[in-house]
């Protein structure tokens, strides 16, 4: 706030009422009203964007989840029937299980790789080499997930893919990367993590740079070295960044769609079918928009619950300097 004049020293705009309680907030001055108006104007595009593209669709989905609608005919009120159908649909339940399994492995791997590489890049190395690594690790993130998945589908093809060809050179039999129930989910996780870890990596690099060198020096004077220093100093001080990276990572992972859709189309069987895939198939292939919205609402609730849990746990594990 640039206004240095205390509100108490201002000339009152009008005579104070005798009956007013002592704690009453004095009316804002014309200048502060102008500041508020300016702030509101600056925020308006963002607020309008959030309302139009986030709040309205969320409310719309909740309303639609209470209707049967197939696009062709008018919607008819269904009450909670769509939710009943969803809870009785084995494919939906399997997709939630797959999504949670995917989220656990993808986020854990993503954070582990990103943190390890960030620590490595933050070590001693020429500045130009550090820039090369930073760009290289971040680059996959700017590519389209669908395009990457198409390329990866070729690479991981069991019969004609480069990966199995290379493995064959060292005598390893072809691996059914995308056509075996066990391997398919692992492959989808790998492809996803390869593309996504660059974001967490950048966060960690920024977080590491924010840790004062004096603290590391003090730890060294106290005799801490290598791993001990990372566990006792770096990680606690990096915990706010870890929280942000894990929150964003989990929210993204719970909404995974492109990679399993292109790589395996949810198969074999339902082994890689995720919640967002089910939403897409139910709505746009089977024309059951009400049920698709119900699944969407459940996913929304799940994401909210997981995020709330993370913030609750963060009180114990996150240390702010």
């Amino acid at each position, binding site marked *: 706030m640039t206004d240095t004049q205390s509100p108490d020293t201002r000339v009152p705009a009008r005579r104070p009422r005798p009956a007013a309680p002592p704690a009453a907030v004095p009316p804002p001055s014309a200048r502060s009203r102008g500041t508020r108006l300016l702030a509101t104007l600056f925020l308006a595009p963002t607020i309008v964007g959030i309302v139009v593209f986030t709040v309205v669709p969320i409310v719309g989905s909740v309303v639609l989840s209470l209707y049967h609608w197939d*696009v*062709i005919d008018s919607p008819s009120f269904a009450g909670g029937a769509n939710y009943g159908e969803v809870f009785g649909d084995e494919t939906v339940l399997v997709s939630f299980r797959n999504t949670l399994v995917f989220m656990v492995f993808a986020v854990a791997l993503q954070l582990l790789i990103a943190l390890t590489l960030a620590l490595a890049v933050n070590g001693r190395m020429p500045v130009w080499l550090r820039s090369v690594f930073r760009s290289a690790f971040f680059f996959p993130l700017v590519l389209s997930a669908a395009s990457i998945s198409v390329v990866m589908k070729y690479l991981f093809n069991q019969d004609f893919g480069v990966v199995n*060809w290379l493995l064959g050179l060292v005598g390893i039999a072809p691996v059914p990367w995308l056509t*075996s129930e066990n391997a398919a989910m692992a492959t989808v996780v790998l492809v996803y993590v390869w593309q996504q870890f660059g974001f967490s990596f950048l966060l960690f690099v920024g977080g590491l740079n924010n840790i004062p060198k004096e603290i590391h020096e003090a730890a060294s004077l106290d005799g801490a070295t290598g791993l001990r220093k990372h566990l006792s100093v770096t990680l606690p001080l990096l915990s706010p960044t870890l929280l942000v990276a894990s929150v964003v990572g989990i929210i993204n992972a719970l909404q995974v769609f492109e990679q399993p859709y292109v790589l395996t189309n*949810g198969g074999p069987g*339902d082994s890689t079918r995720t919640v967002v895939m089910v939403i897409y198939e139910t709505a746009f292939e089977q024309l059951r928009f009400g049920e698709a919205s119900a699944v969407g609402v459940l996913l929304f609730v799940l994401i909210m619950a997981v995020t709330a849990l993370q913030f609750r746990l963060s009180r114990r594990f996150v240390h702010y300097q």
Partner: protein
Amino acid sequence: MTDSHLTRRTLLRYGAYGAGAAALAGTAASWDRLTGADVPGRDDGSLVVATLGSAFDPAAVRALREGFRELHPDIPLRVNAVQAVDWSDFFAKILTQIAAGTAPDLVYVATEGVQLFARRLGVPLDRWVRRDADELREYFADVHPSLVESMMYEGSLHQLPVEFNAADMYLNRQVLRRAGADVPPPDWTRDDFTALLRRMKRSSDAHFTPYFWTNRLWGGVMPWLFANDTNLLAESKAPGGSWLWDTFYPADQRRGRGGGFRWTTPQATDDRVAEAYEYLASLVREDLCTRPEGGNGSNLVGVFSTGRVGVTPAGGFWAGGLHLAGMDPDGYDVQYFPRRLTQRHQFGAAGYAMLRTSKMQDAAWEFIKYAARRDTLTRLFRSNQTTPARRSMLTEARYRDTGPAGWRVFYDTLDRFPDTGPIPAPPQVAEVEQVLLKHTGAALSSPRAVRPALRRMQGDLEQAMEREI
């Protein structure tokens, strides 16, 4: 807060806000729903035709438009080439347009969507066909009745087929030579087919796969079910349709025809279905074929043209694809699908469906007739990216540059095996296809998975078919 803080001025101000908000809400509520048609320039009075973008190249679309303008200068035409990876994706986008209030007048629809469109969105063409019967005689004389029958629904004709593709078997001549084999005879059996794959495998290196197939409704497991004289869903024919058969086809060609196909009771646990799956599982185990890969087989052209695949099922559409990939016309050939209990083939066809929301139905009918003309199809299908529905268009000259030498197989499939029929595509086709793909992948993912997977498929199909569309 006490009442003493609510001044008269404040009260009046909030009252004004409330009145303003109520007025805005009232105004908004009294408006008609905004739709995509409200976007300026969207609804310009043109006849709008939605085509599958990847089915026609831009030059073909231009030719389609210009040809129609010459014939009907009074009907403005807009061709909306919707880009989609497959028919399912295409239908999803068309339905999104319908939901947005920008429904086209005509939609290019393949077998996969014929019954869904006929039941929910389409207009029967019967009255126009009856009215213009004389004009259409030449068309029907040139088009096989099986293709026409596949476009009928409950006794009414919904589309004039303009293209089709039956699943025949493509053979790589380079691989055949390497194996010391020749193109098999037309009446070859499934055992001959297996023996040929083994021979190809023996004569090639470890990176070679004799048989490639794609997990999809058309050309996936379905041809094997047809050859085993069975189907995923019990097949019958609707009554009716004699108005069309009696008018346009001679007695020998209208025998056994009805008012369109009906696909009803799921029969995934039928022994013949299980036997076909077990056969494919045995090919996978023997490394004679790929595991069922999802998608549209986009990587197939490359591996086939370089001799890493020996045999694959495809229709006439692949001749153009192989030619574009640089394959010599004599580098491959085509033969009928092998026989097991029958040699019945499966096919998919496509044509233009008129939407009941269209306000230009007479103009739309003129376009349907125009699109089925021989000169139009010649302009549209120049590069052998499909099999034209008109028999007269399949000529030596058409296949001279692209091959294959056995091009007659494409149309003769319909004549030689008159029971050849469309892939099962009831109005619930989206769910049926999804269930098929899902459980086919699971059935062939490991040994002994076939029967349990088919039992699950049966349950899911029953659920899908119970759903009212």
